[in-house]
């Protein structure tokens, strides 16, 4: 192979994917940016006018409230998932190969089941006459049923379950990949188990934890069926609203503006989380950080 071909071959190999991404992703994105600045009339999108009307409308208490709720629920889910997944990942990572594979499969299984089926499954457990409330009542712990669904609690429970694996998998991979000699080296230098965790295991797995949390968070923000089925009409989230605005009202400018806000908010959070990783790493250092 001559030098010229070697130089161009990587680009050539990237071409098909780049083309698909341009047509299927980049063009619609640009189109959405443009749409969000157009006016809207009952007859549809008005490409002749340029306006910030769609964005101003998002400041309406109703829309702002939906955004706020979606963001809050998504963050709560990600935070709880991170806390729950970490010990699981630690446990799985120290098992033998076969047990690891088996347990990961178990944790992956919810992802293999249709979201709607999962949601109905949760209904059986969380409903006013569901398993949990029946048990609570039988034990005499409650008089009235505890509301576990058709509210934010239901959405949070359902999505923690549904999106758990996106935090667990990268975290497990990172923890299993840490050379055990590093932990022994830390112990050998006088670190107790907690110090080994704080100064070696945690910082080395932090990037993976953050990656998992970001994926988890974006999945939460985009979740559609679970909030609809477990949250009901009272817990409206952005994805459901976007569906109504785009496909029922056919208000494309407003829909596009919603997408832009969602995109920017997510990007901001991604950048923020990377900052957290960086400062978390700096925190384990002693003298070298300056």
């Amino acid at each position: 192979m001559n030098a010229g071909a070697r130089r161009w071959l990587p680009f050539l190999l990237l071409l098909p994917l780049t083309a698909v991404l341009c047509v299927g992703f980049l063009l619609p994105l640009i189109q959405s940016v443009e749409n969000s600045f157009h006016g809207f009339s009952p007859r549809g999108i008005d490409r002749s006018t340029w306006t910030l009307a769609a964005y101003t409308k998002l400041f309406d208490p109703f829309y702002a409230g939906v955004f706020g709720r979606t963001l809050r629920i998504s963050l709560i889910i990600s935070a709880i998932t991170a806390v729950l997944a970490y010990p699981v990942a630690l446990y799985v990572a120290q098992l033998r190969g076969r047990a690891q594979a088996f347990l990961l499969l178990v944790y992956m299984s919810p992802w293999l089941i249709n979201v709607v089926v999962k949601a109905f499954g949760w209904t059986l457990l969380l409903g006013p006459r569901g398993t949990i409330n029946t048990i609570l009542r039988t034990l005499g712990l409650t008089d009235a049923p505890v509301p576990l669904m058709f509210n934010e609690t239901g959405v949070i429970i359902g999505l923690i379950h549904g999106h758990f694996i996106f935090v667990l998998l990268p975290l497990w991979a990172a923890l299993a990949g840490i050379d055990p000699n590093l932990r022994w080296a830390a112990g050998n230098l006088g670190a107790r188990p907690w110090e080994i965790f704080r100064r070696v295991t945690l910082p080395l797995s932090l990037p993976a934890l953050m990656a998992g949390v970001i994926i988890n968070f974006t999945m939460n923000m985009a979740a559609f069926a679970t909030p609809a089925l477990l949250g009901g009409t009272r817990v409206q989230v952005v994805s459901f609203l976007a569906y109504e605005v785009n496909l029922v009202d056919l208000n494309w400018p407003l829909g596009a503006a919603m997408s832009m806000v969602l995109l920017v908010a997510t990007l901001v959070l991604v950048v923020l989380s990377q900052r957290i990783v960086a400062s978390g790493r700096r925190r384990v250092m002693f003298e070298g950080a300056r």
Partner: protein
Amino acid sequence: MALELRDLRKRFGDVAAIDGVALRIEDGEFFSLLGPSGCGKTTILRTIAGIVTPDAGAVVLGGADITRRPLHARDVTLVFQNYALFPHLTVFDNVAFGLVMRRVARAEIRTRVEEALALVRLAGLGQRYPAQVSGGQQQRVALARALVVRPSVLLLDEPLSNLDARLRDEMRGELREIQRRVGITTILVTHDIHEAFAMSDRIAVLDRGRVEQIGTPTEIYQRPRTRFVATFSGQMNEFDGVVEAVADGRASVATPAGRRVAAAVTDDAPGPGARASVMVRPERVRLDPPADADQRLDAIVESVTYLGGSIRMVARAGGDRLLADLPTGDAPPPAPGARVVLGWRTADAVLVAAG
């Protein structure tokens, strides 16, 4: 501090990684564990460090039994076979780690780390990450990290095996020099005989989890007590047979071909009737031997190889093949096919039991 291993044992499944090891390392000594791959060297070091718990036996440090003491509470530091530097910490922080764990004051940490880095000639590299320094420098970071806490015993697990030949030679000298200066009891694990010979006060030769022989480099090389030690520590001419007589510190062995060969022996040598081998190092074999070389044979030269500092001659004497490393002189060495007389002193030959 003196370190003692008492009848240490550790099995992994069917493998006896440590099979009854007992030895005592004196304060300030540079001691090597030498043996082939898989003989249990790393497992012994890990047992001393507390990473591996032995099935039986005891590790005694300065008179205190530390066999059950947890990893972090032992005053023993280990330089890992793969260095195990913390990739997320700078060189400085890697070295500072042990001091921080010991709650040393910040100002003192700073000076001690700088000192340790200077000691291993890494001053100025503190702000780099392990991935940003060379293999040889990483090795020295690992050494500094282990030395800076001033442990009672320093454990080195093949610390030089990843380096190229030149750097390895350099580091051998440096390591020994640092050890002398700091005066720290050190155990080096290696499968490289030259490394063990060049650096150690004493060596324990290991085979399949057992100690074959403990001695100074000279003792190991010149007076090996077992066939394994003899052949592992260098090349040997072997004469296998049966011990005929032992007298006055001399034993003679009769080979099946009817040859009689003698060797100097100690009291614990195999007695008459035992199957044994007489062994002689190639460089002890001389051409046209002088009067004091009382073991002689007539041989026919098979090949001669010029090695620069010496000449390796392969010769045949009846059924026996002989290796001789001869000094390079002015006279040309005998050509293949030539008849020669080869000989050595009885004192240079050793007797070992048949393996």
